[in-house]
């Protein structure tokens, strides 16, 4: 009996390898497992066996039946797969995909985020202030009293019939922040600024700046240089050096213009830096004690540094943009490149 069951299994294994289609497979299943099959008659005759024998053969028969069904099932899938006409299902994989459409950030937003992220990682807070400012915050608090010639250094948009102006520099945020916070602190103040200047490829009346402001007990010029170097090296992904030149901004003393080593030639000299190895970037300085006083701090208790730069300038350097007016053009042919 045992032998018989194993024989049937072997016969099936032999026969199944020759099966080519579903019909043959059906016939085969009927022949070996059908009602009139030898296998079924074995199962039917189980009852005639001695109990011990019956148990043994019964287990074997059931196990073998399961095996055979499994073999047939996998053969059926095999036959089905073989009969698929893959050739008919060929596609052109080079046809464009169905896009759900992705939008694009204005490059100023991208640069601004990079700056915010670098400074946030260094523990700086992002400070903010209004774009329509009072003359107090835009000028007086920054040591630029009324009728001071330094007010001419920026062509400011003034509001009719009020003491309001469009913020001409992000430094206007300084006193606002200082009035609410005590040193030590580290902030950056990014934002939109306005100057009444004729526009051309390098001038815009609406533009963006950010400035870094650090105030504490013993902040010095060396700290200013260091933070600027760390930031620019991170931003441009290369070692950047800082160079200070004396300058004048009423809200700092000493005041500087700063240059960075050329990002194109690493200071060797190229057309981007007009051969001198340095790029002029922005203004900087040690916070004028009058600014602290205007913000309500005692004179000569704290020191601090501030330096700033135009975001448009950074974006133009980074993406080789040659016309500053593009940022506010709303032209999607421009924006969709970022």
């Amino acid at each position, binding site marked *: 009996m045992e032998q018989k069951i194993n024989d049937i299994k072997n016969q099936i294994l032999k026969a199944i390898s020759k099966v080519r289609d579903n019909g043959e497979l059906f016939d085969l299943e009927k022949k070996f497992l059908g009602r009139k099959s030898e296998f079924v008659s074995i199962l039917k005759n189980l009852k005639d066996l001695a109990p011990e024998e019956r148990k043994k053969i019964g287990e074997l028969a059931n196990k073998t039946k399961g095996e055979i069904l499994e073999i047939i099932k996998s053969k059926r899938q095999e036959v089905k797969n073989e009969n698929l006409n893959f050739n008919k299902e060929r596609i052109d994989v080079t046809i464009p995909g169905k896009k*759900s*459409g992705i*939008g*694009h*950030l*204005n490059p100023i*937003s991208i640069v601004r985020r990079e700056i915010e992220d670098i*400074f*946030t990682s*260094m*523990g*700086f*807070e992002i*400070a*903010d202030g209004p*774009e*329509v400012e009072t003359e107090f915050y835009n000028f007086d608090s920054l040591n630029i009293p009324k*009728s*001071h*010639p330094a007010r*001419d*250094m920026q062509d400011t*948009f*003034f*509001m*009719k019939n*009020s003491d309001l102006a*469009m913020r001409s520099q992000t430094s206007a945020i300084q006193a606002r922040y200082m009035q609410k916070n005590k040193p*030590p602190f580290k902030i950056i103040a990014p934002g939109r600024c*306005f100057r009444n200047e*004729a*526009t051309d490829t390098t001038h815009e009346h609406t533009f963006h700046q950010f400035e870094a402001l*650090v105030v*504490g007990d*013993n*902040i*010095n*010029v*060396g700290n200013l*240089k*260091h933070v600027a170097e760390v930031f620019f090296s991170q931003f441009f992904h290369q070692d950047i050096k*800082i160079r200070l*030149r*004396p*300058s*004048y901004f009423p809200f700092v*003393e*000493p*005041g500087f*213009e700063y240059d960075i080593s050329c990002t194109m030639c690493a200071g060797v000299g190229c057309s981007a830096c007009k051969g001198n190895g340095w790029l002029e970037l922005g203004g900087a300085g040690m916070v*004028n*004690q009058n600014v602290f006083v205007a913000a309500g701090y005692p004179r*000569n208790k704290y*020191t601090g540094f501030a330096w700033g730069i135009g975001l448009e300038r950074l974006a133009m350097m980074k993406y080789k943009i040659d016309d500053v007016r593009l940022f*506010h053009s*709303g*032209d999607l*042919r421009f*924006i*969709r490149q970022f």
Partner: protein
Amino acid sequence: MKYSYNWLKELSGTKKMPEKVMEDLTFHSFEVEGLEKGEINIPGVIVGKILEIKKHPNADKLQLLKVDVGAGSALNIVCGAWNIKAGDKVPVALVDTNLSNGMKIKEAEIRGEKSFGMLCAEDELGLGKNHEGILILPESAKIGDPISKYFRSKDSVIEIKVLPDRSHDAMSYVGVAREIAVLERKKFDYDFDGLVLPKKKSKKLKIAVKSSKLCPRYIGAVMENIKIKESPDWMKKRLEASGIRAINNVVDATNYVMLELGNPLHAFDVDKLKVQSEKLKVTVQNSKLGIVVRKAKTGEKIKLLDGVVKELTSDDLLITDGDNPLAIAGIKGGKLAEIDGNTKNIVLESANFNAVSIRKTRTRLNLKTDSSDRFEKDIDPNLAEKAMARLIEIIEHTAGGKLTGVVDVYSKKVAPWKIKLDSSYVNSLLGEFILVKDMTRILNILGIKTKNGKIIECIVPTYRFDLKTQEDLIEEIGRIWGYEKVKEQPMISEILPAKINEQVFFERKVQDKLTGIGFDEVYNYSFYGEKDMVSCGFDNIKHLELENPMNSEQKYVRTSLIPNILKNIYENLKNFEDFRVFEEGRCYRPDGKKVEEKRMLAMAVAKNKDSKGEIFYDLKGAIEDMLEGFGVNSYEVRLRKNPEKICHPFRSAEIKIAGEKIGVLSEINPAVLSAYKIKSPVAVAEFDLEILKKHANKSKIYNPISKYPVVTRDISLLVSNDTTYAQIVDTIKKIGKNLVKNIKLFDVFEKDSQKSLAFRIEFEDKKKTFEKAEVERSIEKIVSTLEAELGVTVRK
């Protein structure tokens, strides 16, 4: 300001080339904007000696020369000049030389005689404008040498951007020369202290200063029998190099001294003054000659030197002869007492005026002059005396006049002041290690007297008005010492996490969500014009208006982001079929004396063709996506009745979260679109980002997923056009209670005054599997209520 290098060199005694001077000033003193180099450098022009001169056989006006140029045989040159003789040394341009005037020298045949070069006049070498005759070189010039060797002395011009803090001293040659000397650690060798006002008091001249606040000092000097003529060449050259036109010897002298010392000066023709006025007699006590410095009367007029007439106010300060205005003080002279060719007797003015007053007057009159540029930045009143002494000296020299006397009105004398400088603060602020003796050395060469100690007592000369605080002195030490020496130093501070500006980071998340669903970010100006205001129907909204706009299109501060976005849409429809844009920006409205600021978000969808009329729903879906992204699942969108003009009257909705309005969603009114030349529909939405943030930042709580199956039923309704989807859904929810998990609208079509809506309602019981009968009961109840309350017909 432009500075003649030669003049600076003479005053400072520097031996440095202009480039080096420029570099040193850049890193220690001022921004140098440019350098016009003066050396001539024309390769190919060399020194030649004329060996012989013969008449040209075929031309009466030409001569044949033989010229020794030091190499090879003597050159034959045809020349048309007659100021030369055999033996003269002259500049010779060899064949193939390019001259600075663009001429290229070639081998030529002139009237049958060959010529191998050209002798040069001054203009051909770029040395000046003179074309009269060949330039004759000194005997000592060596034959064959490049000509540039003998013309190094031609002047260079350095252009320096003097910022307001240093204008009072550095808008002068003496100021910049002092700086150049300091950078070489040299004592400045100019007899500044030797300039003393002559003691002789004028008997004829009386001066009355009516406002010592506006005119802290006024010095007048009378000179007689001067002779007006051209200034000497050297003076004209220096004026010209500094960008000032030469006029005559008296006017030029006033300008020359202003350039040299920085104090503007003026000269009046005495014989043109009218001294008969009764008033004058009172004010100047019957003197024959009077200067009265007084405020103008409102509406008083003055005719200026250039003939322009200006009307004044009582804020303006005038120099008068007691009656008639002679000059707007410190700004510009008048026609009345102008120096002309016949002038014989003059009054010289060297004065000091209040900076704020000068600035106000020149701003209002739109009169920016070399004089106002200096006075509006505050000048040391002690300088007036130096300038007058120098002016008299020069006029005596160039115009031959005789000084008859001087009057000086100077009530509040400015004296040097003291600053106590803590030497340790110098180093702690700069982050440097400078020895006290090095600090004082720098201060001393700047003219600041010091008493040594840890606290350095400094006495600041009055010509350095800008040095008022310790930090001012630290800057002086730092810049002369050299900022390049200061090493980068990491800050020492507690390590703390950055405080996060929630609003800024929320607005970044909004950007991310919107770019994620296909919105491009635009930036627009913060302004728009009258036309936008009218087109968009904003004319009833109060706007902030700029006093000095770029143009009338940028006159008002925006109260909405939409008008400028419509301009973007018009432009972009030229290049794109359909697109979505957004902008984050601030809007402003006046609020009494204050101003209301709102951080706004605008979203817009534009399509060239919107055949299905779905643009409103395109934008609505995007807003729903965004809100879902922020975890906002419950919000209301309701039709606005009689919305603003900019909105389509029947396609405008407001969006509320928890009863608070967060924004508005609308199609733009076609009439407004046509004002912006947009031919297809546009949908826009505007949100207040601070309110949106408030509702978006809710913390999320997990809602367990039901273990029991969801049962769905479809119903199809025929409703009147006045019945809204929201009414139906609200009714279904009200009746179905918490068994209704979800309602989906899967088909809509409108016919006549009715519309057909098909819904799929999902039922779910979180506690057990539904019984069929229970669902049927619920559906029946829903249907009957819809029929009763909303007059709906259920299609079977």
